[in-house]
Every structure is written in structure tokens, then in C-alpha cells.
């Protein structure tokens, strides 16, 4: 800052020379700018806010008056949450069960692709072997394959196994109940890998070459370099991808719908909520509180780790 003082001084002089009209216009401009940005900010927050307020209002109130009447006639209850989470009546939501399903689906679906992609990205960046570049390009370009392309055969793979020319090569998985989580983990891991490898490769390949070579000269093997040098250095990248994948899996509907089914035993929150929105579209006391039950976890993760998330976003963002 100190070295730049002369130029700043010149800048101040130049601005004082501009006419008063220009200054007035600039002020009007900035006032209009503030107004527009406030309008946009309101458009982006009021819908969520309305839902949030509503989730704490008694059922008869939600169904007969708008949420804005809360400010003139505040009535507060936690009953909606109680009911939608813990009531055993099958029409109520039973979201506590689905919440556990969401957790059980999400945690392994985040861990597996992180670990596999980190290993693969290291090999693609720092181990010399034939065809390395082609392999990287192949994995990279798999990002553009929409997951819709894989759904039908993958489901068949789980349910009937693999037969080649009438010969059973791999048996069906025959999972039931909570075991079905394994299918969902498998599917999410497959679909996440191309992007994960791409993102982590971006970070790993930019580690200083000297560091790697020094370690090699000291006689460290690849697994050792990976564990002791690379992993600690790429923690921010792992966090960035972890948040991505967490939000993606927790918020996913399509993959869960197909591979987890729709029952209380395995389906995550999103599947249950989408179903409730379809069949009980007017039960706003349940939908409002239910929506917030599903939103609260990603919101906490997001707000506490926003820094990593933004960094990951900027590092390259074409989700396959």
C-alpha cells in the first residue's frame, strides 16, 4: 500500500475534477444498485423464510391463513416436527427412520469415492507408466456420460447378475432390507469417480515436483509418499470434494429412487418427501417441517465448510 501512495493521490485528484453532475449520477446509480440487489436478495430468501415460519405454526393456522399473518398473530408450536419425525402412523412421515437411511446412504457414498479417486489421481499424476495420459483423458471424459445412461443395466446387474451367452458369470446380489444400502453406495461411487479423479488430479498434479523427487531419492516407495506426503497436503481438496459429494448424495433423488426403493427400510429423506409432496400435497404442516428436517444437515455442513466448497467449485466444476 505504501509504495502505491503516489498513484492513489493522482487518482483522488482526478476524481475531484469530475463534475458534480457525474457525482450525483453515480450516487443515484449506487442507490439503484442497492435497491436491485436488495430485491434479488429478498426473492432468494423470502420463499425459504415463509416455509420456515410455517413449519412452526399450528396445523389449522397453516391451512387457513398465510404465513405472513404470523407477524400479527404469532402462534408457535413444535408439534409438526414431533409428528413428522416420530409419529408411528404411516401417513405422518416417520422421517426419523428416513433420516437414518439418509445418513447410512451418505457416509459410505462419500468415503469410498474419495479414497479410490485419491489413489487413482496419485497414480495418474506421479507414477510413470505406459498409456497414462490416455487413461486420464478416458476417465476425464466419462464425466459427460449422464448417469441416466447407466441406470437400467446397473439395476439389472444387481437384480439378476451377469450372464454371458447363457452362462451365469456373476450371481445376483439378492439384497434385502438394510443390505440394499450397498447397492446405493456402489452406484453413487461409480457415478462420482470421474469428477472426483478430475478434481483431485488437479490438486495432486500441482504439488511441487522437487518434493516428490526428493522423497524418491530418499528411497520412499509410492505408497509411502502417498500416505505421508500427498495425503496431508491435499486435505483441502479432499474436503472440497467431500462436501460436494455429501451435498450431492444427501440431496439426490433419482439414484436413491431406483437403487434404494421406496420403503422405510432403505429410502432416504428425499424419496419420502417427494412422495409426500405428490400424495399429500395439502398437508402443509408435514411438508414444511419435513422439508426443514431434510435441509438442516446439508445447511450445517455447507455453512461450516463453505470456504472449502467455494474453493472446490472454482477449481473446476462439471459434475457428470
Amino acid at each position, binding site marked *: 500500500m505504501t509504495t502505491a501512495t503516489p498513484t492513489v493521490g493522482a487518482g483522488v485528484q482526478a476524481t475531484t475534477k469530475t463534475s458534480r453532475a457525474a457525482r450525483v449520477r453515480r450516487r443515484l446509480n449506487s442507490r439503484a444498485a442497492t435497491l436491485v440487489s436488495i430485491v434479488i436478495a429478498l426473492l432468494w430468501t423470502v420463499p425459504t423464510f415463509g416455509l420456515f415460519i410455517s413449519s412452526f405454526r399450528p396445523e389449522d393456522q397453516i391451512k387457513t391463513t398465510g404465513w405472513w399473518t404470523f407477524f400479527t398473530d404469532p402462534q408457535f408450536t413444535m408439534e409438526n416436527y414431533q409428528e413428522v419425525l416420530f409419529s408411528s402412523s404411516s401417513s405422518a412421515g416417520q422421517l426419523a427412520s428416513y433420516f437414518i437411511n439418509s445418513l447410512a446412504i451418505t457416509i459410505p457414498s462419500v468415503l469410498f469415492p474419495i479414497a479410490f479417486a485419491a489413489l487413482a489421481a496419485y497414480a495418474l499424476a506421479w507414477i510413470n507408466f505406459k498409456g497414462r495420459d490416455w487413461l486420464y483423458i478416458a476417465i476425464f471424459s466419462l464425466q459427460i456420460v449422464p448417469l441416466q445412461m447407466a441406470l437400467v443395466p446397473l439395476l439389472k446387474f444387481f437384480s439378476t447378475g451377469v450372464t454371458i451367452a447363457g452362462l451365469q458369470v456373476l450371481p445376483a446380489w439378492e439384497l434385502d432390507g438394510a443390505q440394499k444400502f450397498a447397492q446405493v453406495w456402489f452406484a453413487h461411487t461409480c457415478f462420482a469417480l470421474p469428477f472426483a479423479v478430475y478434481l483431485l488430479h488437479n490438486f495432486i498434479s500441482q504439488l511441487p515436483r522437487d518434493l516428490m523427487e526428493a522423497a524418491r531419492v530418499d528411497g520412499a516407495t509410492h505408497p509411502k509418499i502417498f500416505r505421508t506426503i500427498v495425503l496431508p497436503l491435499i486435505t483441502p481438496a479432499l474436503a472440497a470434494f467431500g462436501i460436494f459429494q455429501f451435498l450431492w448424495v444427501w440431496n439426490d433423488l433419482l439414484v436413491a429412487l431406483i437403487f434404494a426403493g421406496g420403503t422405510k427400510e432403505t429410502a432416504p429423506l428425499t424419496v419420502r*418427501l417427494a412422495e409426500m409432496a405428490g400424495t399429500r400435497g395439502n398437508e402443509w404442516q408435514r411438508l414444511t417441517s419435513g422439508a426443514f428436517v431434510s435441509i438442516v444437515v446439508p445447511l450445517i455442513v455447507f455453512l461450516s465448510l463453505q470456504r472449502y466448497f467455494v474453493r472446490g467449485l472454482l477449481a473446476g466444476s462439471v459434475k457428470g
Partner: protein
Amino acid sequence: MEFDFAEEQPKFLMLMYGLIAFVAVVGGLLLLLDVVPAWFARRRDARLLAAVTSGAPLLRRRKPREGLFALFFLLPTLLFLVVGLVVPAIRTTLLSFMDKDSTNWVGLRNYGWLFSEPSIVRVLTNTLIWVLLVPLVATAFGLIYAVLVDRARLEALAKSLIFLPMAISFVGASIIWKFVYAYRGEDQEQIGLLNQIVVSLGGAPKQWLLDSPLNTFLLIVIMVWIQAGFAMVVLSAAIKAIPADIVEAARLDGVTPWQMFWQITMPSIRPALIVVVVTISIATLKVFDIVRTATNGNYETSVIANEMYNQAFRYGQPGQGSALAVFLFILVIPIVIYQIRNLRQQREG
């Protein structure tokens, strides 16, 4: 209030198995890679020692086998990608040329069906509207907001407000907006914000989501609402990366904010702009959750991804579903080629 925790135990057990499997696979792989080379190294040393003591000629030391390491590092990723993505994608392509039992070849019949069945043509038109509008509007909002709040007071807070919907699931966002669009009869008090505004302006309340083609646009609003935050963050970072001396020089020349935007800001952030538009376009092509939650594809709002799900998993038509999936893939390709060409130009230029 009788939530039975015992009923949930199998889930935790399964989750535990999953975590054990994770530790076993990843830990096992690393251990294997650590132990096996060490064992080989020891054996080589022993042989070397034996050779030295017996006075036999020294064996030439072989170069360590890098390729084998690479194979093991890459093994899980390649396995999952081939089983879960490559082979299924090829199979889907084949299925799209087969009938609904996936036994007989039917040539291009499924693709003919895509473009002749009126309800599917409607689906394709809807998808076109989505993919034209969402990237444009979301990017515009994101850009305007990024420019407006740049260096304003409370910038971080202002940005979080727009960014927050990114953390909300499409399902959650659809419920939030369904509530905005909620309808009550004319004689009742409105509970939806949109109808309340219409009524207070003297209009009659409407069942917004039943009216085609208006309902498609109202669903598009939801997608724009989610994606604008992404556009804003990326573009805001690009704006901040514009060299300060360029901005300062322009300011000294006395350009208006308007000129500044079109002649300095826009050209500088062009690459980021393209990335944003491309990313949102691809996300929009694959949109499924919003349509499924808000209207379930009824009232002429269905889009390709939704129809693909219905055909393949609800109506038992894997052939037609696969054709839709392949068509979706084909739609993505030109967008990606455009982006790759742009990236290459940037690198050369």
C-alpha cells in the same frame, strides 16, 4: 410418539459393515502395496548379500516396476468405472435398439417413437425451453448480483443469501416453491405468497401448476433459484480476479459504470461466463427432481430425464427409456465440445 429405535438397528449394523469394508479395502490395499515391495526388497538384499559373500558376479539391479504400482492404485477406480459406468452405458445404447423385453432388435423404432409420439415431442419441447431459459436467466441474475454486491458493505452476507439454495435439495426447493404457488379457493384466505400477491392486486387466484405452458416456466423459476448462486460465486471470483490496474486506469479515464461493465468486466470474465453457462446447461438437461416433486410430470411439464425414468422403471419400457437416455447423452456432447474448444482457444490465446 412411539419411534422404535430397535427397528433401526439393522441400518446401523449395515452402515458399520460398510465402514468396515471401507477400512478393509483401502487399508488392505495400502498395506499390500507397502508390504509386498518391502518383501521383494528384502529378498533382493539377501540375494545381493549372498552374491557378495560367495564372490559370484553381481546381478544387475532391475528398475523398480512402476507399472505394477500404478495398476494397484488404479484398480478400484477402474473396476467401479467399468462395471458401473462404461459397460452399462454400452448396454443402454444397445437396449435402445431393442424392444421392451430386451430380446428382439427393432432398429430405430424407439427413436422414431421419440419424435412421433405427441406426448414425447412435448417432453422434448419442454426440455428445450428449460435448457434455453435456465442457463441464461440464472447466469444473468448471478452476474447482476455479483457486480452489484462487489465491494459493497456486508458483501459476504449478501452473497451467502443467494448461495444458500445450493445446499438445499431439489426436492426441498420444489416444496418451498410449491408452497409459494399454493392455491386456495377464491372465497378463502390465500396461503401461497404468489396468489396472495395476485389477490391483493385485485386478481383472481389461480392453480398455477395446472396451467400449461405457464407451469413449465414456474418450475424453471425453481431451477434458476437454485443455480443462480453457483453462477454468482464463480463470476464474483472472476470479477475479483480482474487486475486492479486495469480497473483503476479505466476509472481515471472517467468511464461510466455502464461502460466499465461492458468494456472491462464482461471481456475479462468471458471464460468464467462460458464455464458457468455450460455447467448450468448440462445440469438443466438432466433435471429430474424438480419436475418429479412439483408435478410428477403431469399437466404437460415432463422433461427428458423424468420421462426416461417413467418409461424405464414405471411403464416397463426399457427400450424407449434407453432411447431417451441416449438422446440425452447426444444433447450433452455438443455443449462439451464447445467448452473444450473454448478452453483450447484460451490456452493458445
